[in-house]
């Protein structure tokens, strides 16, 4: 099939890509843009390892066509760090062992980033519900909940009280 020229906005930069219309967003990110943070896990639209933000909303990049995302802003795990240093949630995942083998972590990062963007102080139930989109085969969920709690506390301390 003939390749088509599309513009993809990823992590704040616009890229011009020549891709087949059937190309999945995940493959465009990994193969054409060398952004290999997003992972192919189940290949069945259920595990969440490929989660990216599309206009700020978490979606599965293995279940979207790259060409369908033209005109939308895509954020991958590579776009989560702030000014070259780890975001609070990334640091907390490291400190609390939120990542074991690490394969599912980029997907979880995107889900958590969205959760904290819409709800700065979620209850444990809200955290569990939001994270129910992603699977961790190491089953390290408890450490992730601790990491998220720590990240929220760190964030609150960082904001000077008035």
């Amino acid at each position: 099939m003939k390749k088509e020229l599309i513009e993809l906005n990823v992590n704040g930069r616009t890229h011009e890509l020549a891709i087949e219309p059937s190309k999945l967003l995940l493959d465009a990110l990994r193969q054409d843009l060398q952004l290999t943070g997003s992972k192919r896990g189940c290949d069945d639209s259920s595990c969440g390892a490929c989660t990216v933000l599309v206009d700020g909303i978490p979606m599965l990049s293995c279940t979207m066509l790259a060409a369908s995302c033209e005109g939308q802003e895509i954020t991958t795990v590579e776009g989560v760090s702030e000014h070259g240093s780890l975001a609070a949630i990334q640091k907390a995942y490291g400190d609390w062992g939120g990542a074991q083998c690490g394969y599912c972590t980029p997907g979880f990062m995107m889900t958590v980033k969205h959760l904290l963007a819409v709800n700065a102080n979620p209850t444990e139930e809200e955290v569990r519900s939001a994270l129910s989109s992603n699977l961790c085969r190491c089953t390290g969920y408890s450490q992730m909940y601790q990491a998220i709690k720590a990240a929220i506390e760190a964030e609150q301390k960082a904001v000077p009280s008035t």
Partner: protein
Amino acid sequence: MSLPQFRLLRPRSVEEAVGYLATHASNIRVLAGGTDLIPSMRQKLFEPEYVLDVRRIAELQGIRPQRGVGVEIGVLTTLNAIEHSDFLRKHYPVLTEAAATVASPVLRNMGTIGGNICLDTRCLWYNQSLTWRKACGFCIKKNGDLCHVAPGGTKCWAVFSGDTPPALLCLNAEVEIASPSGARRLPLREFYTGIGDDYRKLQPNELLTRVFLPESSADYRGVYRKLRVRGSIDYPLAGVAVVVKRSDGHVSDARLALTAVNPAPVLVKGASAMLSGKTMTEELADKVGDLAARTAKPLTTSALTPEYRREMIRVFTRRAILAIANN
């Protein structure tokens, strides 16, 4: 796995979309949220020459209450938007409850109400990779001529596994369908055929555009109960939706619908009559539960045993009725 090759069409209006459907009707698939079509295309269940990506058609988005009439929901409204709509939660709670159980939060950001209504029927012998199907034997729904679930028969028993349609059936929903000859409206209960491999009355040149909930169905108490193996992500293995309107402690009207146990979502015949005019007691809930279990025809299309799934229809129906009674 990558997808089979196709040409991508991205219309911006219903008119443009219907034009594409008319031209390429023999070899086109409609793509909205993608959560049903794309996994199936990966498994080579569909290899269309054209894919019609309707996501950019703005007029098919949104929930629009119409005073004195009801509410109109564009088919591209995401399940997440339905789940979090204050209007729908207040007036049509059974729908928000059912929408909130679909797959996972991230999949609900993608999946649409139209896609959930049009969801392809599912079966353990069908929703598999081409390699798997080749090795284990093709079935009547795709490439084969026999049914592994009901051997000897020529009917496909693939099971309808959407969560919102039973809720919509309870609410007497109607759907609008656009085609080259104009738009038509159809009660949702007439949309499904009950045949696994030809499960909906939607021609290849037609597009589902809107869902209507009448005001006469507003403000019923509603409950949806879903059986699945995991607490998230999974399709239903049995589902029960119940709506009840009460006056003076008695049921004045009620409807009950099932999903994931037949090739179509079904309203349980006789449930309204059984409940109407009565007080909701445990005894009555048992009776309606038995009726629901008799309506369910689960087969080995899905995980868990058919016997267990049928029993859970009985249990969930009973629990749903008592939950409404005690609320």
